[in-house]
């Protein structure tokens, strides 16, 4: 074996808390993202249950007025910024370097900084519950409700600064994804062979880079309005509340594609594997992501159809919104065609992925009603919109995320999730989801506005609300089963081989879980499905040529043309990313609570930067820097 010529990498301390706090390994960072998102999902889910309990019957008194508004705002903010975005970043972090045959992300320490910033930013946001009240102006915080005059407490400040911290996390992780995917692909892995999950993550990274600064600027302006007495959103002094809306939705709309594109990528990985066919229309599916990304920047004002914009402006944004349906439809039809004629295996990842297609289509179609301006004048800010975005975000993103977790769990942990519990989970989640959110379409049509903590009896809203609440508890039960499944499988789950699903892409070439350096030999890629081809090409028999087993992670036919051997260097662990993130968080805390935290924050930040800049990334490499 070639390993005689290979320097075995120095593997750093593996266990213990310190190892995790200083890790720069993309796999551990991915796990931290996923666990963090899971924790916040629990909080966001409990908040949802509180909402549904309050709304179960008219004039309920569980969560009244301000308390409701806080829980509502934190539910939306949590699910978007602390669950869906980070779990997608986490799966991307874990899987993408493996998929493209890389040893790590392009900037391992920046990557660690990103995850710490996410975790601390998320804790910071939730700290508001304990320190004087959570934000309560909804997840898009419209000015002037968020101005000091109407929101005296610190909730909005927590929201502003929390989102800034999370924004830093998203920007850094996006820079990392762009560089990683563009620069670190294995030999032969050209862009038109790139796995779809990597494709969609790449597009998403660009969306984040171009969308995030807009909300970041808006949040700064709002903060200045609140604390320096500027007038950006103060109409009495010539400021403009609509400026907030434009800046917010210039971010906010791309944001929803930020949450769906990687999910679509996951589904585009899973459906082919479980149908044992290549993805139908690979090129179209890949480029339609780019198209969705581009068009996604030209539709933001469809969230503002009722603010009194001129007809032509509304019409433009309506047309652009409808245009997005074309590339989306391309994906939907290609997914179905992928399954068509396949040899479909009903394992849990497939069930969730197929349900994604079924449910996302409903969410997409209801989006068309919203894009039709006169219909939107009626249903905007009603439960019809709530139904729309839960079908896209939950039926879409969340179903795909859960599918992805079932799919990559064996790779990450070396054990399968239990299939039988998985089916129970699926059934409960599918039924619960539809029972919760389908009636909301009718509630919206029946005139029920969103974000109301109570309603009068006799408006025809009672039964549907009760159904939705029952559904939410069934849904929650589904997640309990999921949780049990995860815990049980970690302990006693069936051990998973390197290639548990008969996979297509490179992550299935290395052991489960992979070694710290991912691949002993960087594989050379010849097609879109390197691992499939390795197993089946030129072999008419339904048996793989090569059994992919642990430790056998090189492509055998490629013996003659492996990537040039380089000694493997793993980046050294570093505590400084955590220190910098902690410094920024303390600084933010000081701004909202007591100034005393500010100097400590600045100190940690400066120290972290200085030490990071002088600590070599690869200490053992000659001339390392």
């Amino acid at each position: 074996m070639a390993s005689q010529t290979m320097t075995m990498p120095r593997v750093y301390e593996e266990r213990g808390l310190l190892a995790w706090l200083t890790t720069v390994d993309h796999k551990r960072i991915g796990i931290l993202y996923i666990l963090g998102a899971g924790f916040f999902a629990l909080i966001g889910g409990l908040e949802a249950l509180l909402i549904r309990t309050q709304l179960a019957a008219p004039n309920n008194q569980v969560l009244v007025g301000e308390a409701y508004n806080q829980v509502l705002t934190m539910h939306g903010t949590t699910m978007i910024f602390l669950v869906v975005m980070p779990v997608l970043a986490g799966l991307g972090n874990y899987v993408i370097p493996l998929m493209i045959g890389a040893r790590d992300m392009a900037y391992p320490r920046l990557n660690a900084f990103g995850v710490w910033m996410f975790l601390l930013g998320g804790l910071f946001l939730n700290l508001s519950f304990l320190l004087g009240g959570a934000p309560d102006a909804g997840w898009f915080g419209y000015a002037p409700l968020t101005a000091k005059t109407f929101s005296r407490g610190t909730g909005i400040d927590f929201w502003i600064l929390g989102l800034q911290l999370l924004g830093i996390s998203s920007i850094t992780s996006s820079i990392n994804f762009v560089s990683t995917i563009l620069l670190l692909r294995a030999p032969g892995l050209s862009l038109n062979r790139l796995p779809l999950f990597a494709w969609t993550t790449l597009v998403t990274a660009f969306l984040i880079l171009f969308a995030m600064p807009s909300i970041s600027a808006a949040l700064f302006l709002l903060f200045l309005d609140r604390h320096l007495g500027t007038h950006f959103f103060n109409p009495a002094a010539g400021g403009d509340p609509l400026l907030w809306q434009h800046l917010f939705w210039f971010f906010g709309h791309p944001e929803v594609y930020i949450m769906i594109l990687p999910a679509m990528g996951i589904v585009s990985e899973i459906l082919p594997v479980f149908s044992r066919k290549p993805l139908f229309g690979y090129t179209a599916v890949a480029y339609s992501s780019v198209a969705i990304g581009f068009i996604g920047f030209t539709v933001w004002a469809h969230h503002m159809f009722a603010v009194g914009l001129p007809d032509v402006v509304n019409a433009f944004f309506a047309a652009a919104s409808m245009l997005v349906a074309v590339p989306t439809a391309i994906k939907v039809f290609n997914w179905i065609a992928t399954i068509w004629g396949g040899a479909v295996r009903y394992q849990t990842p497939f069930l969730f992925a197929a349900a994604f297609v079924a449910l996302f289509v409903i969410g997409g179609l209801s989006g068309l009603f919203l894009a039709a301006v006169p219909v939107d004048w009626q249903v905007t800010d009603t439960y019809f919109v709530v139904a729309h975005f839960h079908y896209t975000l939950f039926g879409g993103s969340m179903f795909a995320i859960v599918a992805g977790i079932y799919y990559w769990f064996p790779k990450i942990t070396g054990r399968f999730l239990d299939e039988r519990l998985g089916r129970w989970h699926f059934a409960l989640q599918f039924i619960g989801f539809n029972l919760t959110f389908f009636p909301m379409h009718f509630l919206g049509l029946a005139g029920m506005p969103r974000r109301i903590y109570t309603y009068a009896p006799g408006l025809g809203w009672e039964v549907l609300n009760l159904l939705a609440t029952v559904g939410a508890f069934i849904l929650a039960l589904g997640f309990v089963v999921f949780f049990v499944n995860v815990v049980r499988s970690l302990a006693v789950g069936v051990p998973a081989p390197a290639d548990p699903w008969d996979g297509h892409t490179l992550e299935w070439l290395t052991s489960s879980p992979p070694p710290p350096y991912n691949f002993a030999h960087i594989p050379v890629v010849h097609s879109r499905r390197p691992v499939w081809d390795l197993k089946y090409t030129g072999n008419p028999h339904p048996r793989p040529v090569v059994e992919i087993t642990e430790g056998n992670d090189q492509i055998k036919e490629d013996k003659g043309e492996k990537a040039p051997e380089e000694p493997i260097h793993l980046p050294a662990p570093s505590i400084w990313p955590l220190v910098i993130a902690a410094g920024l968080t303390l600084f933010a805390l000081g701004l909202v609570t007591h100034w005393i935290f500010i100097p400590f924050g600045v100190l940690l930040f400066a120290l972290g930067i200085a030490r990071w800049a002088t600590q070599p990334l690869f200490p053992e490499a000659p001339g390392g820097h």
Partner: protein
Amino acid sequence: MAQNSGEARGWARRWAGGFWILGIWLTGCAAQSPSILAPVSPKGRAEAELFWFILLITAGVFVLVETLLLYAVFRFRARDPRAIPPQIHGNNALEISWTTATAVGLAVIFAMTWRTMAATSTPPADALPVKVIGHQWWWEFQYPTLGITTANELVIPVGRPIRASVTSADVIHSFWVPQLGGKMDAIPGRENAVWLQSDVEGVFYGQCAELCGISHANMRLRVRAVSEAEFQRWVEAQRAPAAQPVEPLAQQGYQVFMSKACVGCHAIAGTPAQGRVGPDLTHFGSRTTIAAGLLENTPENLARWLDNPPAVKPGALMPRLGLTPEEIQALVAYLLSLK
């Protein structure tokens, strides 16, 4: 042209009637709900028709897509787990055709959208102007040409178009009466025009539709559509100054009102009370609800309100004034006499 579009919409509606499950459910609910599918205004009808039209197309797409998906999933289930199906990478003709078909479907939806917008977005020129001002958490209505100011209940003549100029005194609200047509945001510093109309007499439920703080849920309103004759009577009554209290209890209430903080926030025409912070109370007794549609306007409810407004309506900007039960009884008598 206009006739064509009418025909097309009628056709859409007939077909849409085919969605009978939905239809039955919706008619069931429309009877009691402020449903957008039970419109009583030209604008609301146009919007509902567009809804049905889009539902026709999307329901078709829905059935098609879900059928194909389910068929594929069930039909192609692998019997032999090792079986390898033909490896098909794509089909240009197929891909081009579904892309084109989608584009055409969307173009049609957009065309209908544009038509409906053009037909409904501007109020007719002869419309009766009304100014709608959102406040945390109640509605102020002014009839600039009639010199009337009232709150929380908008009275309009049947069949006559109303041009509502919507704005706000504080944060953003959204003015919405589902059966009379789509909503319009009330934004401080801006005036947005929206067209209302009711073709039948009746009371229509409405509600603020933009999160505006603690009692957003309790910022409700009613539109009362009355015959032209009744409207004229109502206008006459509203233009008169407030009724003088005659009963002794009411007279006592008048004294309480004028000596307490009430005058600082409320206006009663023809009296020293000229506050503009809270609703105009000149003809409070003629309204059917209190506190932005939250409670029936009965003596008991009014007493509850005056005793402790924030307890009735969380966050209410009318403070608890520490009135004695006697003062409250007197105020109730006075306020309800303001017909």
